[in-house]
C-alpha cells in the first residue's frame, strides 16, 4: 500500500486537495502513553510557582477557610469550598474590521456540603466574612431539607488528602500578548481569505480563557490550579447570489489546553486562502447520492462523534438516570460492563485527564481526586465508567475516577467528561492509505451539524468538507452530506484505523450538560478511521432521505 501513498493527489487532478488539518505539533504533545494512571500531576508550566504565588485568590483564602469552618460548625459531614476566578478574552474580526473586543471576569466563592446525607450548595460573589459564612450555613440548611426526601444518604468513596498546585503547560501566557498583535493576526487571516475571489464574508476569532480555582476541603485537602485554554477560529463564506446559495468553510484548528504558542502554530494566515478556496469549492460541489456507504472520518470530524456516542454514554450518572430530565440516560447500563461488544476488535477508547493539550486535563478534579487515565472500551468491549466520589460505589469501584467539575464558582460541581480518545491502530496507516483502500466512499472532515438521541443510539452528523472517493482516489467535492448510524453498529463497522502519526486532538469548550446547564471543555483524540454508515442528502427539497 505504501507505494500508492499520496498518489491520490496526482490521480485526482486536484492539486489543491491538501487537507486542512493542523500539523502534528499543533496539538501540543505526544500521544498518551502513560499507563496506568500517574500518581503525580502532569508536568506543570515552568512559571507555575510564580503564577500561583502571585494569585489574588490567596488574599481570600482565609475566607474560604472560614466557610469550611462555618459549614462544619453548622453540622456538615463533608464540605468543599471553591474560590473561582474566570477570565475570558474574546476578539472577533469580520471581513476587514474588528467586531468585538471583550474581556470578561468572574470571581466568587461556592460552598458544597453534605449534611444528614443530602447535598447542599450556596455561592456568592460578595467576598466578605459575613457573606461566605452565611452561604455556608444556608448550604447546610438546604442539604438537611433535601435529606428529608432521600431514602438513603449520599456516600462518598474514600479519597486521599492532597495539597498541591498546578498550572497547565504553556509557553506564552495568552493574556500577556499585546492586543494589537492578536488583532493584527486575525485581520491578516481575514484579509488572506477575503482575497479569494468569490468569498463574500470572513469571520476570524480568538478566545483565550484562564480558569483558576482554589479548593479547600473539610478533611484538609488544598488544591490550587490555573488552566489556560485557547481557541482560534476562521470561517469563510462564499455566496452565489444568482442561485441563492452560500457555503461556509471553517478552519479545522482545534481549541487546546495551551498558551498562545498554539495560536501561532495553527497558522491561521497561512491556511486562510485554502479556507476561502474550499468555501467556494463547497458552493460548486456536487450533491451527494444518498445510500449505505463507507466513510473515512478525519480526526477533525470523528472527535465529535466519539464525544457524543462514547463520551456521553459512559457517564455513569447518565446511566443511573441522574440526567434523565435533560441530557438523557444511556444505552449502557451497569449490567453491560465487561460484556457488551460496543465496537470492532480494533476499537480501543481511553478516558484521560492527564493527556497533554487535552481541554479536560487537570492535576486534580473539583474534589481533589488526582487526574487519571483508564480504559472505557477495550478490544471493542465496554469496560469502564466515568465516576466521581459519590458515583464510585455504583460502578463497583472503591475510588473515584476524578471527573467532578463546576464551570463557575456559582455552579454546583457534578460529573463531567474527561478527555475520551480513540487509540491509533497498530499498522501505521496514513489518511492516504485509508483512501487508497476504499473503493466507493466519502472522506469527511471538520465539524458540521450534529444531533444524537437521549440514550446515544441514533446519531446524524454533518461535516465541513466532503470528498467523494472512487477506486481509491479522491474524485470531487460533495455537498449536503450527513451520515446517520446507530452507535453500536457504527463502532462495530470500524474496519480501518490510521496509525500513531495520524492521531490528532479535536475538542470543544462548550459541552453542555446538567440543570441548570453547565459548560465543560473537553478534547478527543483519534486517528482517521473508516466506518460504514447511512449517508443522507440534506439538500433542497428532499429534506433528507434514507433510513
Amino acid at each position, binding site marked *: 500500500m505504501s507505494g500508492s501513498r499520496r498518489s491520490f493527489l496526482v490521480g485526482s487532478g486536484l492539486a489543491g486537495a491538501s487537507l486542512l488539518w493542523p500539523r502534528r505539533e499543533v496539538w501540543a504533545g505526544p500521544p498518551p502513553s502513560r499507563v496506568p494512571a500517574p500518581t503525580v500531576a502532569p508536568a506543570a508550566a515552568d512559571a507555575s510557582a510564580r503564577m500561583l504565588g502571585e494569585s489574588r485568590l490567596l488574599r481570600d483564602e482565609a475566607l474560604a477557610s472560614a466557610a469550611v469552618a462555618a459549614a462544619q460548625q453548622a453540622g456538615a459531614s463533608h464540605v468543599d469550598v471553591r474560590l473561582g476566578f474566570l477570565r475570558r478574552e474574546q476578539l472577533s474580526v469580520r471581513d476587514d474590521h474588528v467586531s468585538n473586543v471583550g474581556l470578561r471576569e468572574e470571581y466568587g466563592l461556592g460552598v458544597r456540603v453534605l449534611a444528614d446525607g443530602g447535598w447542599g450548595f450556596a455561592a456568592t460573589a460578595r467576598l466578605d466574612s459575613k457573606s461566605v459564612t452565611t452561604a455556608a450555613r444556608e448550604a447546610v440548611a438546604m442539604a438537611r431539607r433535601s435529606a428529608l426526601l432521600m431514602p438513603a444518604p449520599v456516600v462518598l468513596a474514600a479519597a486521599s488528602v492532597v495539597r498541591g498546585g498546578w498550572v497547565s503547560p504553556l509557553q506564552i501566557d495568552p493574556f500577556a500578548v499585546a492586543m494589537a498583535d492578536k488583532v493584527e493576526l486575525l485581520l491578516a487571516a481575514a484579509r488572506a481569505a477575503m482575497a479569494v475571489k468569490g468569498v463574500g464574508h470572513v469571520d476570524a476569532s480568538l478566545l483565550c480563557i484562564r480558569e483558576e480555582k482554589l479548593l479547600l476541603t473539610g478533611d484538609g485537602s488544598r488544591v490550587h490550579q490555573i488552566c489556560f485554554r485557547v481557541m482560534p477560529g476562521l470561517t469563510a463564506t462564499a455566496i452565489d447570489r444568482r442561485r441563492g446559495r452560500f457555503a461556509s468553510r471553517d478552519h479545522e484548528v482545534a481549541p487546546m489546553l495551551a498558551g498562545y504558542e498554539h495560536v501561532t502554530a495553527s497558522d491561521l494566515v497561512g491556511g486562510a486562502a485554502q479556507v476561502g478556496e474550499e468555501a467556494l469549492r463547497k458552493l460548486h460541489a456536487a450533491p451527494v447520492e444518498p445510500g449505505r456507504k463507507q466513510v473515512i472520518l478525519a480526526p477533525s470530524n470523528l472527535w465529535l462523534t466519539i464525544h457524543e456516542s462514547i463520551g456521553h454514554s459512559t457517564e455513569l450518572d447518565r446511566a443511573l438516570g441522574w440526567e434523565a430530565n435533560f441530557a438523557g440516560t444511556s444505552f449502557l447500563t451497569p449490567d453491560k460492563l465487561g460484556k457488551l461488544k460496543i465496537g470492532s476488535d480494533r476499537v480501543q477508547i481511553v478516558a484521560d485527564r492527564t493527556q497533554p493539550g487535552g481541554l479536560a486535563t487537570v492535576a486534580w478534579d473539583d474534589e481533589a481526586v488526582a487526574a487519571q487515565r483508564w480504559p472505557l472500551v477495550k478490544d471493542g468491549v465496554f469496560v469502564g465508567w466515568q465516576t466521581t466520589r459519590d458515583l464510585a460505589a455504583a460502578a463497583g469501584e472503591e475510588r473515584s475516577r476524578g471527573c467532578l467539575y463546576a464551570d463557575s464558582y456559582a455552579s454546583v460541581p457534578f460529573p463531567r467528561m474527561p478527555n475520551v480518545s480513540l487509540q491509533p491502530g497498530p499498522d501505521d496507516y496514513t489518511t492516504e492509505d485509508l483512501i487508497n483502500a476504499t473503493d466507493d466512499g466519502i472522506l469527511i472532515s471538520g465539524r458540521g451539524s450534529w444531533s444524537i438521541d437521549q440514550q446515544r443510539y*441514533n446519531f446524524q452528523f454533518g461535516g465541513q468538507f466532503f470528498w467523494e472517493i472512487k477506486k481509491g482516489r479522491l474524485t470531487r467535492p460533495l455537498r449536503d452530506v450527513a451520515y446517520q448510524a446507530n452507535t453500536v453498529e457504527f463502532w462495530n463497522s470500524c474496519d480501518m484505523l490510521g496509525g500513531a502519526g495520524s492521531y490528532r486532538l479535536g475538542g470543544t469548550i462548550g459541552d453542555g450538560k446538567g440543570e441548570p446547564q453547565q459548560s465543560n471543555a473537553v478534547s478527543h483524540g483519534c486517528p482517521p478511521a473508516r466506518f460504514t454508515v447511512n449517508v443522507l442528502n440534506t439538500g433542497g427539497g428532499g429534506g433528507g432521505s434514507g433510513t
Partner: protein
Amino acid sequence: MTLGRSEAQALIKAALKAATLKDVSVRVSSSRSANLRFAGNAPTTSGQAERVEVSVTATREKASATVSGSAQDAAGVAALVARAEALAAIAPQDPEHMPPLGPQRYLKVAGEDPGTVKLGPDARTDAVARVLKVARDGKLVAAGLFEHVHRSMALGTSAGLFAYHGETEASLTTTMRTPDGSGSGWGGAMSHRAVDIDAAAVARRAADKAEMSRGGGPALAPGAYTVVLEAQAVADLLGFLIGSLGARAADEGRSFFSRPGGSAIGEALFGPQIRLHSDPADPRHPSTPIAGDGLPLEQTVWVDQGKLLAQSCSRFWAQKQGRAPLPGPRSLFMAGGNASVAELVRGVQSGVLITRLWYNRMLDPRQILVTGLTRDGTFRIEGGRLVGPVKNMRYNESPAALLKQVLALGVPERVVEGGMLYVVPPLVVDGFRFASVSDAV
C-alpha cells in the same frame, strides 16, 4: 442579591463619572437563583447562587472594548472603566460601531412577582415532594428540576440613557420513566409567578405519558406523517425560524428570507391562520421591554395571515439601508384556536402525537432545515385515539415548511424554554418527515 433600580443606577452613575471617554455604556446584571434537582425519586443536588456582573463598553473613535467583572462598588466599577478605556485605546476601529443611545421610552412591564422573589428552600422541597409522590404512587422513576430566579438588568450610557428591568421566573420540569426503562414521559411548566406552577399536575402529565408508553412500541417506517405537535414541540422548532428573521442575513443572501434583489417581506409564506407577534407587556406573560443594545422592545407583528411583515434589523444595518432599526424578539406569541390536545387528536384519522423534540440542530439555513428526535411521549394515533407508543424517530424538517401545512391549531400555552418566552399552540401538521428510527426511550 438582585440589585434594585436605585442600587443599579448608583453603580452606573459611578461608572459614567469615572469615564474619560465620551462614548461609554454600562450594563449591570444581577440575580439570585436557586434550584432543587432530583433523580431516582430523590433529590440529587440543591443550590443557590448570587451573581452580579458589571459590563463596561468604552469607545474611542469607533474603537470599542468591553470589560466585565463582578464589581460591586464605585471603586470596582471605576477599575472596570479604566481597563475598558485602556483596551479601547489600542483596539482597532469598528466601522459598524454606533454612537451610544440617548434616553428611550419603554413599555411598562410588571415582571417581578413578590411571591417568587421571596421563595425559599421549603417551597422547593414541597414542589419536589409532590412530584415524587406521583412517581412513587405510579411505580415510576422521576428526575427533574425545580428552579426559580429573581434578576435585574440595568443599562446606562454617556448619552443619557437609563433603563432598568426586574423580573422573576420559575419552572418545574420532570421526566418519569418506568423502572424497566421501556417507557418515558415528560411534563413541564414555566411562569413569572411560582404560584402558577401546579407541581402535581405537571407530575401527572409526565406520569400518564410514562405509563402509556410502558413496554415500548413498534417502529414506524420513515416517511411523511400527520402529526400532533404539543406546544413544547412547536416552540422547539419555531426557535429556528425566529432566529432566521434578521434583515442583514436576508439582504446578504444568507437566509431563507433572501430574495434576488430584495427580501420576502409581504410574501404569503405560510398558511393564512399563522400569526406571530411579540409583546413584552402581555399582562399574563410579561418579558423584558429592553433589547440588548438598549432599544425599546415594542409590540411587533412578525407574521400575519401567513405574510411576513417584519424583519429584525440592527442599528448599524438600519442606518446603512435607510430603514428603522428593529430588535429581535424576546417573546413570541403564536395565535391558536380553542381545541385541547385531546380534541386535536380526535380530529386525526392516522398520525403521531409528539410531546417534545430533542437535540435539534440546523442542517441548512436556506431552507431552515432542522434535524432532531422525538422524546418522552411519542404515540400512534388511529381513528382519533391514541392507540399506543411508537419508537422515537429522527426528523429532518423545516418549521417554515410546517407552517404551510398546518391543519388545526389548539389553545396557546407558555412552554419551558430559556432565553425567550414562547406562548404557542399545539398544532396538527400534515406531511411531517421522519427520517430514521431511534431505539432511545
